[in-house]
């Protein structure tokens, strides 16, 4: 287990370095740079000063080396847009996105998996409605979902239109602040969770249908177990394997979805920060956001692997066997 974790940690480190370095270099090599934000007619001295401040007067390789040297000390440079160090900005935004992502993942799991079990194990109108709803949720892009939800919120006033806290929450105590955040969660969480819940439902339905066709399920039916027991106690466990595999991917989907959802709903998270950084070509902020995105992806992948390990006894046996072989050798 410890070697597994060590391998995963190394993988995570490599992922973060590759993703953030690629982001830095791509942001640098694409046409235009952050000095465009000074306006089309900024003076030459102001442009030169800004380029020097963000190391844009160096060649890309030299800039990367300087940035990596700083990043090794957890200093990721300054943001042009926010005029403050990238590290604090990215950490705060990542925490906000984590709140959103965890809530969306929880909702997607709680909605998608039970519906998938129903749709995969039954025939009839109910299953057909679930399938149709999933297809709609999968087809509608997050931009449209979030705009639609904002429109619904504006019309019904059931939820706040956006943001993470309300104006009245200026300087609140802890529980009041948490309650305020909770009130603001439904809109972005729904926009993020619906396509993922649909993905889970579709995967779960297919996996449970496949599991119910397996000989062990037929044997359980032959032994006289109720349909409910066959589905929940036998087929579901087996069907979890493909689902655990996509949990890591779901984190990636949450991150990409959060770009537009956070932008539309004014949620101050990593997706919105990344979007703003990319739009302004705020090079160190782009790299910092990408590094944090890499951390999220690595964590998602790790969680997916651990879930897979927990769900599939054959993987646990194989891991034990490999460990035993090493000890014997």
């Amino acid at each position: 287990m410890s070697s597994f974790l060590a391998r995963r940690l190394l993988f995570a480190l490599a992922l973060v370095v590759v993703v953030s370095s690629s982001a830095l270099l791509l942001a640098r090599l694409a046409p235009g740079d952050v000095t465009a934000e000074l306006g089309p007619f900024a003076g030459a001295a102001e442009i030169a000063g800004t380029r020097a401040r963000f190391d844009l007067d160096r060649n890309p390789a030299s800039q990367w080396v300087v940035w990596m040297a700083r990043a090794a000390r957890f200093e990721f440079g300054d943001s042009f847009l926010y005029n403050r160090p990238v590290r604090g900005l990215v950490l705060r935004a990542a925490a906000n996105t984590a709140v959103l992502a965890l809530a969306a993942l929880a909702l997607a799991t709680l909605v998608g998996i039970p519906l998938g079990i129903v749709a995969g194990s039954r025939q009839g109108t109910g299953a057909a409605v679930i399938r149709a709803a999933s297809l709609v949720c999968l087809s509608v892009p997050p931009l449209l979902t979030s705009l639609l939800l904002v429109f619904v919120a504006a019309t019904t006033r059931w939820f706040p239109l956006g943001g993470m806290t309300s104006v009245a929450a200026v300087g609140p105590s802890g529980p009041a602040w948490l309650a305020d955040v909770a009130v603001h969660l439904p809109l972005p969480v729904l926009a993020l969770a619906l396509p993922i819940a649909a993905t889970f439902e579709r995967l779960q339905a297919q996996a449970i249908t496949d599991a119910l066709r397996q000989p062990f399920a037929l044997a359980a039916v032959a032994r006289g177990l109720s349909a409910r027991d066959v589905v929940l106690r036998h087929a579901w466990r087996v069907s979890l394997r493909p689902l655990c595999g996509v949990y890591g991917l779901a984190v990636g989907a949450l991150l990409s979805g959060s770009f537009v959802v956070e932008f539309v709903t004014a949620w101050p998270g990593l997706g919105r920060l990344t979007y703003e950084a990319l739009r302004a070509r705020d090079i160190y902020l782009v790299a910092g956001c990408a590094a944090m995105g890499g951390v999220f992806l690595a964590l998602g992948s790790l969680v997916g692997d651990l879930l897979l390990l927990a769900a599939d006894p054959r993987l646990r046996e194989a891991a034990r066997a490999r460990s035993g072989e090493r000890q014997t050798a």
Partner: protein
Amino acid sequence: MSPARGGQIVASIRAEPRSFNRLVARDQSTDLLTFLTQGRLVRINRASFDLEPWLAERWESSADGRVHTLHLRPGVTWSDGMPFTSADVLFSVQAVFDRRAQSVLASSLAAGGQPIRAAAPDAQTVVITFPVPSGPGLRLLDQLPILPKHKLQGALAAGTFASAWNAATPPAEIVGTGPFVVREYQPGQRVVLDRNPRYWRRAPDGAALPYLDRIVLEIVPEQNAELLRLQSGGTDLSSSELRPEDYAPVKQAEEQGRLRLVELGVGPDADAFWFCLKPEVKGKDPRFVFVQRPEFRAAISHAVDREAFAHTVFLGAAVPVWGPVTPGNTQWFWPDVPRYAYDEARARDLLAGLGLEDRDHNGVVEDARGTEARFTVITQRGIGWYERGTAVLRESLARVGIAIDVAPLEFGAMIQRMLACDYDAMYYRPVFTDLDPAGNLDFWLTSGSAHVWNLEQRVPATEWERRIDTLMLEQAATIDPERRHEQFNLVQRIAGENLPVLYFAAPRLYYGHSVRLRGVVPSVLRPPVLWNADSLSVAPGE
């Protein structure tokens, strides 16, 4: 009935403030925060465009217009209780021209390319001396927020002024003489400003200003979401004018009694179309032979039906224009600027006069060597009216045999191409920094960084540009307003005859705000409503 005291309003802004120090940041959010938290010696009233006493209550000017003696308003204090004196004014001027401070205001506060000077005979008097006579004179000082010496002199001495009062600074450190003080800044969410209890200004009835207890600036980066918030009552106002496509829903909300729609007037800036005319870059391009001829650009001007342009591009909310100074700039607009009536036959004649005819009958004119009048126009991606404007231009010019392909680009890429003259033609709205032409020398002078069609020339490329250079420098140094107008009208005539930039329509600007907001004095300049924040209030009981 006097306005109600107390209450708060919520406004939306689309971007974070880059700093709380306007001397080193020029973004719109920083500018707005400066309006709310800082004072100036004199102020240009955004509605009447008149110069008003502000932190200076009166002044005398020398006959040659170079020396201005300003008397500071007695009893003014900073929001932390420290007295405001002439030392703060001297410090602010010093900071603007300190090289290490890299102030973005240095060039706009210079006259004749040299810095203004400030001296303080006593704590309540400041003498501002211009190195050369200045047409705008004290109006230039409207741009200069006076910053507290006692808070920032250490940073200036240490050479860290450029990063002082950045967005990470604790709000308690930011003091001002404006109507509000920063209470809290939550990055990505909002800036909260509370009433400055030490604000100096009084209402005509003697009541202390501002009326409002609090202004909240919510950061809403997406413009559709910003509109939805306004419509649903989540915000009272936005920081900028409505887009043409937002007019109908806001009008509907007004009819339902939820919002108030205000016409600000014709905007001071118009969308512009120009070719890169830099001979060093374009000289070898065979199309440059005819593009550099004013007749070619006049043909384009004749080919566009400006009424239809205004109707299509701005959905009817625009007026036709023929020059950079729109009717929105009431002080400097000149109605006699050369006009080019919509006349496709005249456009074809002008093209034929340049030897441009459709010889191969493919719908595009070409010269005798077979060089087609075909161009790529760059514009900014994602802005509705730019996309509509270039579409109308494409159709209009196609009818007279000029083909254009449109390439919408991200802002940064577009600016990079513009600065390198790596484009054929461009459609964009360059925003003038000042209504007074002397404040826009960067646009008019051939050496200017905003002389868009041929940036930063070492020597004027054409005789008519040289003439404009001379006239504009004279105009900027002339005190007599009538003489200044004569000189600038001549500049407008020369530009109108040579058409380095073509203008088609200037938008009418509209603004929406909640019905509970009182004391709104709209302006075509930004910020359209919050420039007057100290006199805003909310309806009693709301």
